[in-house]
């Protein structure tokens, strides 16, 4: 098995009395995409920051973080030199234009002027931003800013790309464009670490996901395997309140698992036919029969919805 790019062992992080990360363990293998999934405040960003030395983990004897075999508390510079970071909050330099934003960044990495210029052209083209080369930052749309942030992180051809919620707040077209680009980069050998609270994003990009809540790991594995193993294949969502009450009074076979801990009931089952026979008794509207997804898995594991704000 290939050597891990990131190795995290028993890592904790507290801010005063708040425990942001509790006893986290994981490994990231080269040329794979590893995703942190969880609601706001789950500790995803804090974990990312500890990887590139923007936050320091609690000092305990058994805790360890190794990135490229180096401890970020001591080798912050070496790790950042080999990694690209796309922050959750847009921190482009508003006082500089698109090209200058990238240029000063190349400068931080000690790159030669000609190389920087060449990389800027390549990356602007790759992210379909060539026409914005000399634009001011505030003239860019949210999607363009996000693409520019990713381009900035890739300028020095890093070996590890760290993305904190790369597509939050973007429209579906831009989201798909970014996913497509990230897949291409992974194929070319880049290791990607990302956080997201979009189930679909994790499913589209990640080889491994780690679901966390309240700073703790809940489960880790391949997205497909997790779904197969921990949640039924199909689900009916009842959207109408009175219909929900009717549904709960109906006799429900053992092959269906009802869940009404969150307002309107949900009915899970491995058997599509069992659910179909249930819906036939419910009439024609007010419910939605679909395949279950990571969101349902999260709900099952934590007992609460993923979009709840902390």
């Amino acid at each position, binding site marked *: 098995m290939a050597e891990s790019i990131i190795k995290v062992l028993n890592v904790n992080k507290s*801010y005063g009395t708040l425990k942001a990360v509790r006893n986290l363990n994981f490994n990231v293998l080269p040329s794979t995409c590893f995703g942190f999934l969880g609601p706001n405040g789950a500790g995803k960003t804090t974990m990312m*920051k500890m990887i*590139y*030395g*923007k*936050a*320091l983990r609690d000092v305990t004897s058994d805790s360890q973080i190794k990135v*490229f075999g180096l401890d970020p508390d001591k080798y*912050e*510079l*070496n790790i*950042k*030199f*080999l990694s*690209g*970071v796309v*922050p959750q*909050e*847009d*921190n*482009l*330099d*508003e*006082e*500089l234009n698109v090209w*200058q934003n990238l240029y*000063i*960044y190349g*400068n*931080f*990495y*000690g790159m030669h002027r000609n190389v920087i210029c060449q990389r800027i052209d390549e990356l602007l083209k790759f992210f379909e931003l060539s026409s914005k080369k000399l634009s001011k930052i505030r003239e860019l749309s949210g999607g363009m800013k996000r693409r520019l942030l990713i381009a900035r*992180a890739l300028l*020095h*051809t*890093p*070996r590890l790309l760290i993305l904190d919620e790369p597509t939050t707040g973007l429209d579906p077209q831009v989201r798909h464009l970014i996913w497509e680009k990230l897949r291409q980069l992974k194929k070319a050998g880049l290791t990607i670490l990302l956080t997201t609270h979009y189930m679909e994003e994790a499913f589209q990009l990640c080889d491994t996901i780690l679901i966390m809540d309240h700073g703790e790991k809940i489960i880790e594995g391949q997205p497909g395997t997790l779904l197969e193993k921990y949640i039924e294949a199909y689900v009916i969502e009842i959207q109408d309140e009175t219909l929900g009450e009717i549904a709960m009074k109906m006799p429900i076979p053992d092959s269906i698992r009802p869940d009404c801990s969150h307002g309107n009931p949900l009915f899970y089952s491995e058997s599509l036919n069992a659910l179909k026979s249930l819906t036939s008794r419910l009439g024609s509207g007010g419910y939605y029969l679909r395949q279950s997804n990571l969101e349902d898995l999260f709900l099952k594991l934590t007992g609460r919805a993923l979009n709840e704000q902390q």
Partner: protein
Amino acid sequence: MNSNDLPSLPYRILSVWYRHFLVYTRNLISNGLPPFLEPLIFLAGVGLGLGKYIVSMNNLPYIQYLASGLLVTSAMYTASFECTFGTFIRLEYDKVYDGILAAPITANDLIIGEIFWAGTKGCFFSFAVLTIVTVFGVIPIGLSLLAPVVGFFTGLMFASISLWVTSFVKTINHFNFYMTGVLSPMFFFSGVVFPISSLPKGLQPFAEIMPLTHVVRLVRAFCHHSFEISLFIDLIYVIFITIAMSILAVLRLKCRLIL
């Protein structure tokens, strides 16, 4: 890419400096012209009005006395503004520092780069004042040409003090206390406008504590070619304050940058 190619410490500091340089020179007219206009306005005010009432100060024409002081106060103000409002905006509003810290730059590199940039601005502002006072023949050409060097050290010193102040500030309005409560008294009671010896005896030691007093003495020595051995004390004071405050600023700001 190999991590052996890691940029060296001076290079990293320089690349932070370069970011500020690029931002500053982007608006060359609006940033570069006022430093020349300000001394012009000042000298016009003194030459046309105040100078008629106060003819000489410390055996020098008053306009010359005041002009030599302005060589460092301009540096003090620009460095102080840069490292209070400027730094705070980069830290809290624009998140520029977060962006820089994702690159191979440490918090220390960033803060030291900041101080050197403020020093550079101090040097430039002193140069601007020097240009005006030299062109108008207010200060005779000579060692006064070294004033921008004093301006550079003035910039470094006030940058380090201001960064330390900034490290305590939670909302941007708090800087008003520093501007009005510290910098304004410093301007009036550090021997820029009138000699410290004119202050009441009891207040004179306070003037000696003020950092501006010492750079004013240094720059006056160059302007008026009068060197005394006591200037070494001023020099040591400036170096000591700059280093001590830089260390304090780095330690405190680091806690705000690395969580």
